[in-house]
């Protein structure tokens, strides 16, 4: 393998921000699908976490577009994508998909919280009455009939939201998978892999936060809900990892021109982040841990500690996967004769610090949201 890259390829165009975007939308889609498992598919065990997952999805959604805006050379023209969409482009539907999903999530949250908002408004001890009044748009009516209608609407919206959430994130995968010029990206499996990895990251972040918050607040964990989520996580992560490895296996077996360069990518620039980090440590490690947690009868406390660690490991696995796709694909020269290199800066416009801030803000927002509308039954009990 030589060391030649086209002169314009010395600069990597899509950097840390484009790694962040699919990562955050993955959390959005995954968290939403968990909430829908309860609302649509009636998995009662997930009820304690359904509200939390829905609001988490919304919090991440609010900031998912920020990395993209920061990345654009002309962010002031971002709305051109909706004003003058060029429909031969896979990217042109982005604004509409994003908007549709946002509307669905906002409506679902509104109907979900409407009864809470009315109750708080009517409570004699309530402070911030005006805020609650605005939140439920002045409609203070609440009875069994309105609750039934609200629930029905939430269920319908959650039902519509599942395919839209899958589209939102599968679409990001398609943006990469449809680039025929890039040998590392160009695969029809890319959008399916993205959907499953999104679900994995969504469940992982919910488990991680659920255990973390309950540990901090010293609340009792709903073990049934946690066990159910762990089983789902186990299943989805197996599908996600197997799909990705099968894609790689078929590439290797076909021995095409693509593989001639990609084998050097995997064993060279991506050795640590892909083979060691993503596959061996994070994927295989979390598979073994989850298998142990699900199949072995471990003491509950030990099991929960392992679940916490595994969810963290899988969160790292998914961000490594995003990195390996986005950055890895651009390291391969389109001349098929070498690799370029990339090292993110810390303080630059699209650097590590900005990425960390964008990632942390949704969590801070969730914390504030929890103060207005507590997520978990235990904390709700405390307030009331």
């Amino acid at each position: 393998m030589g060391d030649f890259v086209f002169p314009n390829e010395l600069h990597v165009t899509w950097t840390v921000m484009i790694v962040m975007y699919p990562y955050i939308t993955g959390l959005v889609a995954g968290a939403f699908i968990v909430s829908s498992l309860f609302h649509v598919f009636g998995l009662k065990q997930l009820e304690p976490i359904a509200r939390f997952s829905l609001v988490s999805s919304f919090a991440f959604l609010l900031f998912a577009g920020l990395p993209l805006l920061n990345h654009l050379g002309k962010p002031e023209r971002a709305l051109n994508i909706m004003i003058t969409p060029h429909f031969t482009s896979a990217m042109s539907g982005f604004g509409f998909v994003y908007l549709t999903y946002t509307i669905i999530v906002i409506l679902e949250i509104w109907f979900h919280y409407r009864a809470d908002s009315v109750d708080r408004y009517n409570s004699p001890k309530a402070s911030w009455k005006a805020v609650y009044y605005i939140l439920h748009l002045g409609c203070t009516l609440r009875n069994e009939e309105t609750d039934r209608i609200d629930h029905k609407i939430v269920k319908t919206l959650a039902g519509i939201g599942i395919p839209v959430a899958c589209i939102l994130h599968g679409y990001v995968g398609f943006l990469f998978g449809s680039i025929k010029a890039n040998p590392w990206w160009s695969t029809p499996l890319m959008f399916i892999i993205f959907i499953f990895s999104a679900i994995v990251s969504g469940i992982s972040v919910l488990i991680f936060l659920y255990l973390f918050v309950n540990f901090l607040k010293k609340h009792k964990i709903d073990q049934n809900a946690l066990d159910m989520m762990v089983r789902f996580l186990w299943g989805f992560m197996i599908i996600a990892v197997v799909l990705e490895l099968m894609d790689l296996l078929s590439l290797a077996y076909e021995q095409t021109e693509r593989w001639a360069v990609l084998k050097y990518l995997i064993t060279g620039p991506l050795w640590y982040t892909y083979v060691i980090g993503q596959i061996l440590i994070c994927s295989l490690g979390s598979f073994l841990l989850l298998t142990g947690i699900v199949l072995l009868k471990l003491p509950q406390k030990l099991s929960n500690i392992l679940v916490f660690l595994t969810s963290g490991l899988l969160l790292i696995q998914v961000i490594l996967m995003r990195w390996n796709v986005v950055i890895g694909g651009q390291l391969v020269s389109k001349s098929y004769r070498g690799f370029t290199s990339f090292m993110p800066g810390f303080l630059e416009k699209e650097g590590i610090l900005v990425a960390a801030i964008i990632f942390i803000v949704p969590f801070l927002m969730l914390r504030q949201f929890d103060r207005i509308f507590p997520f978990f039954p235990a904390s709700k009990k405390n307030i009331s």
Partner: protein
Amino acid sequence: MGKKSKSITRGEFVRLALYSTAGVCVGSMIARGNLKDEPIGDLSHDLENFDWAFIVDTTRCIGCGACVRACGIENRVPDGYFRTWIERYEIDKNENIRVDSPDGGKHSFKQNQMQDKQVVKGFFVPKLCNHCRNSSCTQVCPVGATYHSPDGVVLVDRKHCMGCGYCVQACPYGCRYISYDIGTADKCTFCYHRIHRGLPTACVQACPRRARIYGNLKDPHNPVSAVLHARRYSILKPEMATNPKCYYIGLDLEVI
């Protein structure tokens, strides 16, 4: 009271007439002299009569880098980016191949890479935007800022591009970049501002070996068709099905 008209003498009249004639002659000559640098004419009145194409004759290129320098100056290409560049290929007797393009070949190529080995074949390949008929970059632009002009040139509307970089990813030839000084996509335009004034592209004008030829495929007497009818030619990455309009004479199998 009637105004008394001022009369001039015959001598004064002749002198004035001579001065005027001389003035007109000198002025005309100056104006004519200036015209030499003016364009041949504005050809943009009917774009449908044009279909611009390009030929790179790799057998003639000597890798002097004049084209890269001329393009950089003419189009104010930012440092480190290239609308056109030159690649050097060296193949030794064991079929080992080395390719390089230091600074896009802008300052020519100083020495062989394979000094210690026997180079059996070496050649230069200039590259530029292929202005594909079925271009990936125009397909993927989400806002339609990159487009095909009616005369077959792929252009970027700098006032509409939002700088997402999707076209950069989609171009199989590495011809695009996001210009850091303007924040939008940029690439070779076939010197659109020149060819429609009858002037050659900057790289064509600078090439001392006539390794670059451009022309209008709809003109039956254009130099591009003449060469394509007489020589065997190829295109880059035909498997991408982009249908490029930049044709290569003497393209080696090793060139991607």
